[in-house]
């Protein structure tokens, strides 16, 4: 039963985005040329590039229900829509973590030097944060494109002008310390919980994703 649910949801929601995320990670490894990177270059690859897999995978969890036909069909079912979303979310987060860890492993095999545990955690925290931001906006507004847009905007604000000592700074690994990572990981989890809470209050958990324009 559980296996069936996971397999079905993977096929519906994650087959395309999963393929895109794998392609993106592989392309990053190639164009960044991950052989013999030092700590700084490794941090750039992991937290400024591969963390974008969080955006691709997690922010798009509500995407299938953007189609009115699927939304109406899901809304008519008796099972909890939130349970379906949780399953997809769990899969998306797991794939995201595995991709980051896999690339970090490949980088180390190719002679790059960095503390693997801290870097995987740091890159994953960034990925989860931007993914959760997109997930939240998408889940509350009913518009996945808006979710992508807000998450990308926050990502770029951090690249361009954000204060580097902010607790919500996404790229603190490149500064050599990663001080903001635990905070953004906690906030990412809070955003996901808040999205479910808002949807539960609005009753959208039972009748499929609410839709705005």
């Amino acid at each position, binding site marked *: 039963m559980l296996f069936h649910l996971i397999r079905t949801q993977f096929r519906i929601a994650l087959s395309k985005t999963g393929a895109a995320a794998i392609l993106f990670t592989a392309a990053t490894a190639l164009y960044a040329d991950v052989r*013999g990177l030092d*700590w700084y270059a490794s941090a750039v690859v992991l937290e400024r590039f591969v963390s974008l897999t969080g955006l691709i995978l997690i922010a798009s969890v509500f995407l299938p229900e953007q189609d009115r036909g699927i939304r109406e069909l899901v809304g008519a079912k008796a099972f909890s829509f939130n349970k379906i979303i949780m399953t997809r979310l769990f899969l998306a987060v797991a794939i995201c973590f595995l991709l980051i860890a896999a690339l970090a492993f490949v980088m180390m095999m190719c002679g790059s030097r960095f503390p693997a545990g*801290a870097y995987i955690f740091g890159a994953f925290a960034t990925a989860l944060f931007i993914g959760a931001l997109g997930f939240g906006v998408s889940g509350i507004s009913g*518009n996945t*494109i808006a979710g992508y847009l807000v998450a990308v*905007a926050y990502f770029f604000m951090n690249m361009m002008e954000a204060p580097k000592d902010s607790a919500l700074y996404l790229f603190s690994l490149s500064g*050599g310390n990663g001080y903001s990572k635990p905070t953004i990981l906690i906030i990412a989890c809070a955003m996901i919980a808040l999205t479910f809470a808002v949807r539960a209050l609005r009753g959208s958990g039972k009748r499929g994703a609410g839709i705005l*324009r």
Partner: protein
Amino acid sequence: MRLFLKECNAIRGTIPWIAFVVIVIGFYFMNFGFELDNQILQTNARKDVEFETKLMGITIFNEYYKLADNPLISPDEMQDYGDKKVIVPEVTMPNALALLATEYLYERGDYFFAGYSDISGEALYERRGYAHYNKFGFLHNATISDEERAEIAGIIKSCTGLTPEEIYERISDGLAQPLPFVAVDDYRDRVTVDVSYPEFEKMMGRVDEIIGGGSSYAYPYLESQALEPVKYGDRLSEYQSLIHADKVTNAYARYFCDYMGIVIALFAIFVSVNYLLRDRRSKSSELVMPRDISSVRLVVTRYLAAASMAFLPIAAISIIPATKLAAFGQSNGIATDAFAFLKYEVAWLLPTILFVTGVGFIVTILTDTPAAIIIQFVWSYILLIVTPISAPGGISGMGLIVRFNAIGDSGILQEHIGDLVMNRVTYTLLAAVLLLVSVHIFRLKREGRIDIAGKIKHALSSDKNTVQDCPQ
């Protein structure tokens, strides 16, 4: 026209368009608006000042401004005119060779510079090779073969008559490890160079080739080896060019376009993709397909509506700096160009909007998915990293994002205006091609002759039951 206005109205109410407007406003103030306000205020104050802008108690802009940093101030009001990076053979050559000798020893493993991570305490900040940027802008530490190492040692010897070890001894001042970036120090008293600058440049070209390109020994990084104080005459001619040739507003319009080009390349795609997917989301595409309107008229009208709605917030927000600079000009007796921003936006930014909207249309009509967002975003992200931030590099390539991160420098623009025109015309023509192909694909879909989206869906699912499979 009625259809066009109707389509514009439909975009106006969408969440991505509203978010796009908010991003344009935020980006404007963070990168341009606050800086312009502060420069105008400082021009009135005539002294070095520290500006801090807070929003809801959070500092979002904090910068110490010297008079020399403000292009609006006449050099007659300043004590010094700042520094600029230059190639001065008698400084550039010894500095570059001192750096080369140091990197040679790092790479050979004689020394390395180490800093320590706050995360693990491990020595992370270390260099064991020649620092260089690969073609995608990533910093690498290159290692080389024994033969190549011998060749570099030979180059150092033929330039200075010294071995890398001897140079290192002269420049390290008894420190166990020299600082990793020695480029701005002046080593001309300690390293004597016996070759002419053209010979030196040729040999450094070979060094750069061995390292893999993007090293400190070739353009543009070789220019970072020497700093020179700006002379009064140079500063005065820059100021006069800003006031007379650029009429102030033209220079600021270019700076505005530099930042807004990034916003458009990254975010305008969301507006068009969301707009096209709206039909699919609401299942109205089945209603649109058989309508009695030609494919050309429908797609072209929608394309123009999406492009116009992406251009509108940019044009609207540029009224703010145009008005402020007009008022500044009036109070200081400087003639300004009221249409400078609009001219630059049309010539510089509109081709980017047309192209990005074209990418959104062709990919979305073809696949019925938001794939265009990922394609455009990844491409623009890489372009943003690899495109040089300033002219001439930023305006002379064929990249979608044109960079000109300077207020003034109209001389450089004039020199490379041909490249810039070629770039913008190319993207406008490509946009037209994308639009024509989009119309054709839409027509084929309407006639039921292609269904790429269906094929993708079919390829990715092994059975036809998807949502229906969910457990009850």
